[in-house]
């Protein structure tokens, strides 16, 4: 068990900063997820911790130990790779035992640990097989098993579910979460999939272009995104953004989007006061845009007229694509809705869930 600390870590490839000034403290037993689009530096961050990439600047600690120059094998970590990286010429048993054999663990102990891990993952019947004879899901379990038997201080996982089909991925997601609870070890997990990040992480680090955008719990990332990028990245379908100006008329503050304007709830007006007359980015998640015929209770409604362009029936909801003169946006409507493509209709914005960002800095206005 150990904590992990990134201290002003940089990784440069030539002139390019793959990771810039990354500082994170991961507590013992935490499940931290690095998430971001491809090329954001999340894998590089993980690989620096694993010792597979050198650090250009800064320090990384595992527990209290500075590991900048410690080779991977002495860092007491285990890693699950995206491709699983199982040794093709070894059986499942040998794949799992390989790391222990190299560490000269006694035979009985190896046997005990491999069997125990195989039991946890339900792969006892596969121990004599070669990786080639396994399905994708089974290979993924073996890769996890190979990490478990090592009983490391920190588990590193680099997109371990991205080669699985959608259904298996959901199942494996919960299994890894369970495993984290059961082992009580620090997990550091890399993914590009915000759903995985939201469902598994105790905290999430959102990266973009090598820079940490926000480090927070899943709920906080969703409710209080720190900037436009995080707001747009977390949540699916993505948040709707409108370029707008903040104005005041008759003592009421409005978000003016040119072709429509919506009133800002009174409790927020004072926060936004410094931005009156300035250009801002107004954000509204699709799940907070409702069908006026089926408004949920307890919202602060504001009607926005528009034209319905496309609808996508999902069963439990209808994704409704609206267009106004200058904007398009998506609402997640109640499945009972009777929207018709091509007709004009209003959408109800729940203004109590509005987001407002500074247009220049793209940071949330709070």
């Amino acid at each position: 068990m150990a904590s992990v600390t990134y201290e002003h870590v940089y990784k440069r490839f030539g002139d390019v900063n793959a990771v810039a000034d990354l500082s994170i403290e991961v507590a013992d037993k935490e499940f931290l997820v690095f998430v971001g689009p491809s090329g954001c530096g999340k894998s590089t961050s993980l690989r620096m911790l694993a010792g597979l990439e050198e650090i250009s600047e800064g320090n990384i600690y595992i527990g209290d130990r500075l590991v900048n120059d410690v080779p991977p094998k002495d860092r007491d970590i285990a890693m699950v790779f995206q491709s699983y990286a199982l040794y093709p010429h070894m059986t499942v048993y040998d794949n799992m035992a390989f790391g222990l054999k190299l560490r000269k663990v006694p035979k009985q102990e190896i046997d005990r640990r491999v069997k125990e891990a195989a039991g946890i993952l339900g792969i006892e019947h596969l121990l004599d097989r070669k990786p080639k004879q396994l399905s994708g899901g089974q290979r993924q379990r073996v890769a996890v098993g190979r990490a478990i038997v090592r009983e490391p201080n920190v588990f590193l996982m680099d997109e371990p579910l991205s080669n699985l089909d959608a259904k298996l991925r959901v199942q494996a997601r919960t299994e890894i979460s369970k495993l984290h609870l059961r082992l009580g070890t620090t997990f550091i997990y890399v993914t590009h999939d915000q759903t995985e990040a939201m469902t598994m992480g105790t905290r999430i680090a959102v990266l973009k272009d090598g820079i940490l955008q926000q480090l927070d719990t899943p709920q906080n990332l969703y409710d209080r995104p720190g900037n436009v990028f995080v707001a747009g990245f977390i949540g699916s379908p993505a948040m709707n953004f409108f370029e707008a100006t903040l104005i005041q008329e008759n003592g009421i503050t409005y978000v003016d989007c040119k072709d429509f304007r919506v009133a800002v709830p009174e409790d927020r007006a004072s926060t936004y006061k410094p931005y009156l007359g300035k250009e801002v980015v107004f954000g509204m998640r699709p799940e907070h845009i409702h069908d006026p015929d089926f408004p949920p209770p307890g919202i602060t409604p504001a009607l926005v007229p528009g034209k319905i362009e496309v609808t996508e029936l999902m069963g439990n909801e209808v994704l409704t694509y609206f267009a106004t003169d200058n904007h398009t946006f998506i609402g997640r409507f109640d499945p009972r809705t009777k929207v018709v493509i091509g007709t004009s209709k209003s959408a109800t914005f729940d203004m109590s869930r509005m987001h407002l960002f500074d247009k220049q800095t793209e940071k949330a206005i709070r």
Partner: protein
Amino acid sequence: MDFLSKFRERSQTPMVRLLSLIARVLFAVAIPAIAFYVLYLGFLFLRDSEASRGTIALVAIVWGVGGVAILFWIFNSFVERMPAAWTARLQPFVFVGPAIAILTWYLTLPALRTFWISCFDRNGPPAGLSFVEQISSNSFVGLDNYVAVFTERLMLEAFRNNIMWVVFGSTLSVAFGLVFAVLADRSSYEKIAKSLIFLPMAISFVGASIIWNFIYEYRPAGQPQVGLLNSIVASFGGVPRAWPQWVEIIPWNNLFLIVIVIWLQAGFAMVLFSAALKGIPEELIEAGRIDGANEIQIFFNIMIPYIQGTIITVWTTIIIFTLKIFDVVWVMTGGQFGTHVIATQFYRQSFTAGNKGFGSAIAIVLLITVIPVMIYNLRQFGKQEAF
């Protein structure tokens, strides 16, 4: 219904089988026969023509290639006009049949004939006699030649040397190839280093032998040594000598010849290993590092097993080379000084000593030795493709 159609199929089988067998053999033999006849006509025509050499060459190429193509086209369209079932039965043989027929003519029959000759004394089977008369003639010695092959002193020496060739030649070529591949892979001069090591592959065995003759060149003591090896040895105060002819250390003087093949083949091995090593996924090596393996353990526990198929293929290919080795020995020593190998013995017996029967027996023994390695090698190729 299904049962009925199956039944009908089966009831037709013997007749259909016979017919298709005849048709298949016919195609296999007729196509090359016609092709040869047409080519022969072309040859006669061109031989008597007065055209310029360039024109004759051009016509010959067009005639040869075009003629064969048209022949295949005619037979193929003929087969395609048949009922579908017959097209399926015969079409492969339009294309594969001629190849099999020609291979039989050029390879199988000569091999059988060599075996036949090997059952006779030095003059071979007496001409003009029937099969039975040949067997009952005095020239027929049965398997006596084979007994000689495995008992004659020079032959035993040749076998011993060939084993040395196979063991040292192939093993060291593979070992050096592997080491070069791994080192070149990590070097910043990778391309240059690999080109230099691969370069000898472009030299023929005879050419390489002549180059190494210069390296081993010997001048009596006191004179300046012009051979590379001897001048090095002399400069360190050693005794210069004609290394491959160093009879006191027989059989180890063979190693001076084997080095030449290693020099030639290590580059070949290196190129294939290098390609195989590059095929190892980086994540696999990284997994090994995280699992706690050092670079040597990664090499032996992960890299070598991963490229095992390539290693075996290269190894068996070089084994076949060294089993058949002839040129190097013939050029360097002519088989003297205890360096004979099977192939040089075969050549000496057949063509120098004029002992047809004995020479043929040696050839057959060599053939039989190579076949199992060949089969293993081909299987390995097949496996790799499946992998």
